[in-house]
């Protein structure tokens, strides 16, 4: 019986992928850079307002405890202290923080009655300086009544009584459990020749940008409005939720984005910092800044990432055909549950990887523990899915005695099968996985390395090759979140991005973005697309950012959306403007509007090279010569040249009401193959890269240089996740490595010196120009390839890698255990 996987809607693509584009596809230097390179970029901590005060928080030293008593009297008396708030006081001034979990798990800006993880705010001080605020924090005495501490996610399944973090959700820390069978899982397993079984462990890391999260708030008692400067995203999507928490009407809050010094998900939506700053700003009547310091950022930033235990089974035929895939996942969400299990929706977007696997069984158990809560990190949970499916495919190859590359080739979704609906209902829009693999093998010189590795092994060296073919879903639709909610209600289905365009009287083009800069290249991308649309030189284009007062509906970057979405919005706004431009130009040149096109800053008549009007003259005309318009009463010919456009998600469908599939929710499907050669020192557990090559298919590229920037940067994130990074909590819930001295972000010395990048472009049939997202793929492709390479290098020991991060300590332990086992045998 064929599974109902849903339907594929018609494409709304207007700009077909094509040769001969002038600005798209070029490695243009970034327009963001001059101000950033000269120290003139304004980041969150660079907001400096007259009379500004500063907030510091008292962080809980307990992982789980009742707050018995807080004595703030000494702190209040310290000169320079303006206000001190406890959780009880803050609860009177503010409501619960925004959450997407359903039913909601409430979190407050300052913990009230109970602390649920080390580092959670139990009190906060606003003072003349951050120094004084921290002095005052030292003077606050908190008495705790310890509660049982839950650290291990599998133990959390058994918690009862006082060990339960949120008893209003029942006597359990299992906050959400969901089971889906997508397709005929039981039947597929019944016809399998072989089932691969593994327990896999993906560790808790985090985006950990160099800049922490922060906000500066101003309360204007005259207009009764808050203005909040913050390095946030999604402020034009759900920024109004902060007004709810601050107990003001939504229009009494304006959020102004600053530059973000990196996010990788950690700044997807700031609420704690804006609420903290705003709460105090109103209270003390002065501008107030709350910037996380590095300890706040690792202990209390709501941005740790997936922390999962997988029990997985992969059903295969003897010849290596992959049939079905079953997974039970226990995911440690920490103390709160802001995005629900959005990270698992994400994973299901590409859960079968690059393979035509017929069915998938998923059992997710989301547990709460006494840790900083999960948020988003480059991949948002789907990077884990990549690791899991690739580890299983490697295992299947090994157990079936097949070649690791050939088993992939055999199971790839073939290039003529796109658009392809996978069992979960998500669509893969386009791809050519064999080509990406072949290009990667070429770029790495796989054959050459194979030979070299053999020789090196003969010389006693432990060298291995890793190759993984993985997916990069891009352009999320908000349906990915609510399919999981158990109340059965239809949730949000909109997730657009917008653009405002204006051509001024002298022909210069202004683009206003409604999404912020968070370390990507939004101004450059917009400039290149606008230049293409209007055929003007990029030096005539100026890009700025709206605040939320002037903001249009925009989801913001995240889920590798931005480039696709802003391009769609620009194309939409440009179409409106061009229609007007051609109408006016037709009149000015006495030509037919259908015969006109834009070229080199002019409107020209096709096939009549001399006949043209410059955009500059035309704009002047449009602004000031209303009565010289073709028809002054034409409602499309109002004075000036401006347009806005809200571009909705290019292709998304509703989940199946019977929950047989999730609909199309993450369909613009990138693909990449990462390959590397590593040498391991089995005695010390150290490894080094001998070579690295990766090929990405991000559809049509707007700027290959910035895309490669994301690829390489992502690789090093991936190396961190796979080999060194872990936010670790001991059995008492005490974080052991909350500073950069011990949370090991790879430095240049741990990063490959030469990461060779290649590209395959299979255009998306659904997005403008065929673009796909490409912001996350690097991190999503590296871990499974690195695990495979290290496993290959250590193959003489027969080691199977099932856990990350592969620190020196872990690699050495695996070798030691293998040696002990061999000695015992």
């Amino acid at each position, binding site marked *: 019986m064929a599974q109902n996987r849903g339907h594929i809607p018609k494409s709304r693509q207007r700009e077909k992928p094509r040769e001969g584009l002038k600005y798209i596809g070029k490695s243009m230097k970034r327009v963001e850079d001059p101000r950033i390179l000269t120290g003139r970029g304004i980041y969150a901590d660079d907001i400096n307002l007259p009379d500004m005060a500063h907030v510091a928080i008292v962080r809980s030293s307990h992982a789980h405890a009742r707050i018995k008593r807080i004595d703030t009297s000494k702190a209040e008396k310290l000169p320079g202290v303006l206000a001190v708030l406890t959780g009880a006081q803050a609860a009177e001034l503010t409501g619960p923080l925004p959450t997407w979990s359903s039913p909601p798990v409430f979190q407050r800006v300052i913990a009230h009655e109970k602390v649920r993880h080390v580092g959670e705010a139990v009190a906060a001080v606003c003072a003349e300086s951050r120094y004084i605020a*921290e002095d005052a924090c030292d003077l606050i005495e908190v008495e705790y009544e310890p509660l049982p501490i839950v650290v291990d996610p599998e133990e959390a399944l058994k918690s009862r009584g006082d060990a339960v973090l949120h008893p209003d959700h029942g006597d359990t820390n299992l906050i959400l459990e969901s089971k889906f069978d997508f397709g005929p899982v039981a039947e597929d397993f019944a016809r399998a020749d072989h089932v691969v079984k593994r327990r896999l462990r993906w560790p808790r890391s985090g985006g950990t940008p160099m800049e922490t999260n922060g906000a500066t708030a101003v309360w204007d008692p005259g207009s009764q409005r808050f203005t909040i400067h913050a390095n946030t995203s999604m402020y034009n999507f759900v920024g109004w939720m902060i007004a709810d928490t601050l107990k003001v009407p939504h229009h009494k809050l304006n959020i102004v984005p600053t530059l973000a010094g990196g996010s990788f998900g950690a700044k997807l939506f700031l609420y704690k910092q804006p609420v903290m700053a705003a709460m105090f700003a109103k209270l003390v009547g002065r501008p107030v800044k709350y910037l996380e310091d590095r300890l706040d950022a690792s202990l209390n930033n709501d941005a740790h990432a997936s922390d999962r235990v997988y029990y997985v089974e992969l059903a295969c035929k003897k010849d290596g055909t992959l049939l079905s895939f079953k997974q039970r996942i226990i995911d440690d969400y920490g103390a709160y549950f802001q995005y629900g299990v959005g990270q698992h929706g994400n994973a299901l977007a590409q859960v079968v990887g690059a393979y035509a696997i017929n069915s998938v069984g998923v059992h997710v158990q989301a547990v709460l523990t006494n840790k900083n809560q999960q948020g988003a990190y480059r991949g948002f949970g789907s990077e884990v899915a990549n690791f899991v499916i690739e580890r299983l495919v490697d295992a299947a190859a090994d157990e079936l005695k097949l070649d690791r590359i050939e088993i992939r080739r055999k199971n790839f979704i073939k290039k003529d099968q796109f658009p392809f609906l996978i069992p979960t209902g998500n669509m893969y829009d386009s791809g050519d996985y064999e080509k990406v693999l072949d290009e990667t093998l070429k770029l790495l010189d796989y054959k050459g390395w194979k030979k070299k590795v053999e020789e090196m092994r003969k010389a006693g060296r432990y060298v291995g090759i890793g190759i993984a073919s993985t997916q990069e879903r891009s352009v999320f639709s908000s349906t990915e979140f609510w399919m999981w909610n158990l109340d059965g209600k239809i949730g949000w289905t909109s997730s657009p991005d917008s653009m405002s365009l204006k051509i001024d009287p002298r022909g210069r083009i202004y683009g206003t973005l409604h999404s912020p800069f968070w370390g990507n290249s939004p101004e450059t991308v917009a400039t290149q697309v606008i230049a293409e649309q209007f055929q003007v030189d990029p030096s005539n284009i100026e890009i700025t950012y709206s605040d939320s007062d002037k903001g249009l509906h925009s989801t913001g970057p995240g889920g590798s959306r931005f480039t696709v979405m802003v391009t769609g919005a620009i194309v939409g706004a440009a179409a409106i403007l061009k229609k007007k431009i051609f109408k006016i130009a037709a009149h000015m040149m006495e030509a037919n509007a259908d015969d006109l096109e834009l070229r080199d800053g002019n409107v020209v008549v096709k096939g009549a090279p001399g006949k043209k009007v410059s955009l500059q003259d035309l704009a002047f005309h449009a602004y000031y010569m209303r009565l010289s318009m073709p028809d002054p009463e034409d409602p499309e010919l109002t004075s000036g040249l401006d347009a806005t456009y809200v571009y909705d998600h290019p292709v998304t469908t509703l989940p199946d009401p019977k929950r047989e599939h999730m609909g199309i929710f993450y369909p613009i499907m990138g693909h990449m193959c990462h390959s590397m050669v590593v040498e391991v020192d089995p005695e*010390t557990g*150290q490894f080094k890269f001998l070579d690295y090559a990766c090929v990405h298919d991000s559809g049509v590229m707007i700027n290959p240089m910035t895309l490669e920037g994301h690829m390489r940067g992502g690789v090093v994130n991936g190396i961190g996740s796979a080999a060194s990074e872990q936010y670790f909590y001991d059995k008492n819930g005490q974080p052991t490595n909350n500073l950069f001295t011990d949370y090991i972000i790879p430095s240049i010395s741990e990063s490959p010196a030469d990461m060779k990048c290649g590209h395959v472009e299979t255009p998306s049939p659904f997005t403008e120009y065929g673009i796909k997202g490409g912001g996350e793929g690097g991190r999503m492709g590296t871990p499974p390839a690195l695990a495979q390479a290290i496993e290959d290098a250590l193959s003489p020991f027969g080691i199977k890698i099932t856990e990350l991060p592969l620190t020196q300590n872990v690699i050495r332990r695996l070798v030691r255990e293998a040696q002990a086992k061999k000695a015992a045998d």
Partner: protein
Amino acid sequence: MKPAPFRYVRARSVDDAVAALARDPEAKLLAGGQSLIAMMNVRAVKPETLVDINALSALDYIKVKDGGIAIGAMTRHETVKSSPLVAEHCPLLAEAYHWIAHRAVRNRGTYGGNLCHADPASENPAVALVTGATMVLKSAKGERTVAADDFFKGVYQTAARHDELLIEVRIPSRPKGQGWGFMEVSPRKGDFAMTAVVCTLELAGATVKTARVAYAGIADRAMRFAPVEAALTGKPANEATFAAAGAAARKAINPSSDFHADEAMRRDLAETLTRRVLAAAKARCT
């Protein structure tokens, strides 16, 4: 992450500094500050008084003296690292500096401050042990010298009394023919060691005449272990001996576990690095 307030005293001379220490039992010295200020920023320490000795340029020198080199305590790491005198007389110290911190930290951090901070995972104390360095301490009452073997007492603890200032470190020149080695495993390059092993080795023909081996990152301080050196002295300078020394190291140390390396890892590293560092040292015996 801002430091707590403190009283600030700027010492203009060595006498000034020791007088300030004598005056105020709560005073702590501020040299390069590369460890101290980081600890103050997280308020792990809140000294009441800091005596800033950065103006003591009289303690910024490297010179040849009495069959060795004398390094002023306020000599910045980077100066030591790039010193031709150090390379000539104490090549082990020069080599160790490939593993120590990063340029900007070395520009400010001082050699003396590093030793007095006595971080158990720091490299320089272990080097001081095997090179037989001597610390020259000065107080208002006078000067005294302490051998490196007696100097390091525990985590951030040394033999220097509260009122004493380390002014100079004397390191005997490498005896002709002596080999040396330094090896370390750390989470990242420039990080503190999970385990570091340092050695000097002198041969008499094919036999080990003397060997000194010191360890960082495996105890509350940098340490030498008699069984390790006993496993070497008078033995043939070969792989088997070096392996025996490694095995002795594995047994002699009593390391603790932390997030980066558990006890077994540190024992493994001590054994492996001992073996390797001795082989490297042998290759340098001329």
